[in-house]
């Protein structure tokens, strides 16, 4: 998979298939998953809070928890659908690439459904095994509004 745009599509497909271990394996060791509370306006994860800002340890915790039958909030289980617009490469140099991908995200559970929208921003780094995710940043259109539980990965 040489085209980094394919990595973005595959990443979303793995989430929607609930293949969380395979999804996590796409992240670099120093990789982060970040959903800033100010959306696109936020400069960094430290001066302002975020809905999520997780390194591999915390992402692993999330993935492991979902496997536990006593993850009560997963009865019934949540399912997700990422609807991606074409990814655009913003910058590519020295084995690193930045992409922007506008999306709609639907998370369904039982009779309920949440719809979120925004732009995913992937920072990928080239490794011997292919592209790895150094950061997946999700700029929600309305991150600061009151939200119900979002249980899977946008």
């Amino acid at each position, binding site marked *: 998979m040489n085209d980094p745009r394919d990595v973005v599509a595959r990443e979303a497909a793995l989430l929607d298939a609930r293949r969380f271990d395979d999804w996590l394996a796409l992240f670099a060791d120093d990789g982060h998953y970040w*959903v800033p*509370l*100010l959306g696109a306006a936020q400069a960094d994860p*430290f*001066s*302002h*809070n*975020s*809905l*999520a*800002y997780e*390194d591999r*340890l*915390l992402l*692993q*915790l*999330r993935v*492991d*928890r979902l496997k*536990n039958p*006593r*993850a*009560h*909030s997963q009865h019934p289980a949540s399912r997700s659908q990422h609807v991606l617009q074409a990814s655009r490469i913003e910058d590519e140099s020295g084995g690193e690439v930045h992409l922007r991908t506008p999306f709609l995200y639907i998370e369904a559970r039982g009779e309920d459904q949440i719809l979120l929208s925004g732009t995913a921003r992937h920072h990928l780094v080239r490794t011997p095994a292919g592209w790895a995710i150094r950061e997946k940043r999700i700029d929600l259109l309305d991150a*600061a*509004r*009151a*939200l*119900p*539980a*979002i*249980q899977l990965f946008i």
Partner: protein
Amino acid sequence: MTSYRHHPDRVAALVQNDRVHRDLYLSEEIFALEQAHLFANTWVYLGHASQVPEPGDFVAQDIAGRPLLMVRQPDGAVHVLYNRCAHKGTQLVTDESGNTGRFFRCPYHAWTYKLDGAPLGVPLKNGYEGTQLKACESGRGLSVVKHVKVYRDFVFVRLSDTGPSFEDYFGEVLGAIDNMVDRSPEGKLSVGGGVLRNIVHCNWKMYLENINDTVHPMSTHESATKAAEALWEGRAPTDPKPMAMEQILPFGSGYEFFDKMGGRVFANGHSVLGVNFSIHSNYAQLPAYEAAMQAAHGAQRAADILQRSPQNSVFYPSLSVKGSPQAIRVIRPLAANRTLIEAWSFRAAGAPALLFERAMSYNRLVFSPMSVVAHDDVHLFESIQRGLHAGGNEWVSLHRNYDAAELAQSTVTTNGTNELLMRNQFRAWAKSMAAGMEAAP
């Protein structure tokens, strides 16, 4: 379903000594009565003065269904007005916060008001000559919330003209705000990093009860704590714990830990859980911060302040405070089955940045809509909200460690798993509802 309006006796009967009736959580009529009485005659948290630092700064916030404005005045005072033009009812501002300059101007017909709500001007003034405008409410400017207390920058309102004074209402539990503020070597806090907002489809009282529920973490949070423990297993005790692990792992503590942390209840529904210690007691020491605290307060007092780190201090019925980490939750009821929960982080002036980082990290890990800890709480609250519709049993049990002697006491210190901390909330609920309904049936 039973009708409660005009029947304070029926409302009072919903709270028994050791259990409560499901209509407390399910009835829309009870919810409307709470909005009219309980949230009017108690002191409710509106916001923090640091949200409006400059004259003209405002925050718009609904309390009990009434739109309010917290406004910084030219003289530095914080006033609270109703966000309603005296003319036709337009909200003067529809942004959540901002700066209005030196006056408010209604966007509909350009009536203007000073920052304290006094009337400034109306167009076509001559048209009001010989009318009764000035003699009625509409000519007197914006309605003002008369009962406002700014306690160490925490702003509370009592909407009703009847009800206890601020000091009588909160009493000793104010020590929890003191402790939070005293943790700043300069005695000053400010909100920072934004607010995490959660919509939970449950009754607000269920959420507030759970803040004092020490028996749920073992079973409710098992999936999150087991995953955290497995990831951390095998590390040497000397391995530096990432902040997230330091904050999540204690959720896996056993019943004995939670029982021994102890709790204390006060009159009017307030409480401190974790009077002896809490899941927040073992955060890493910060020598430079402790030195700054000693310089500010003296060695003994600094030690007293820092040693005290309860789990949660509840300012019934709207606020829960944590001194360490520096975080609060605000409970904003929206409907019988819908509640808004806000989680705010604070910066303590003169304290290292790490304290603010702890506050934000804790809120993000535990009180974000994406929190793996909260997911199971929220799911179970929503499950209770549905489950209570079942037939066969209309009551919710609060029997654990019930002792008839507690009925005659106001301040009680007890074991951490005693459901007295919840019974005490409901007794205050019944008292406040009855007082309101009898005064204005």
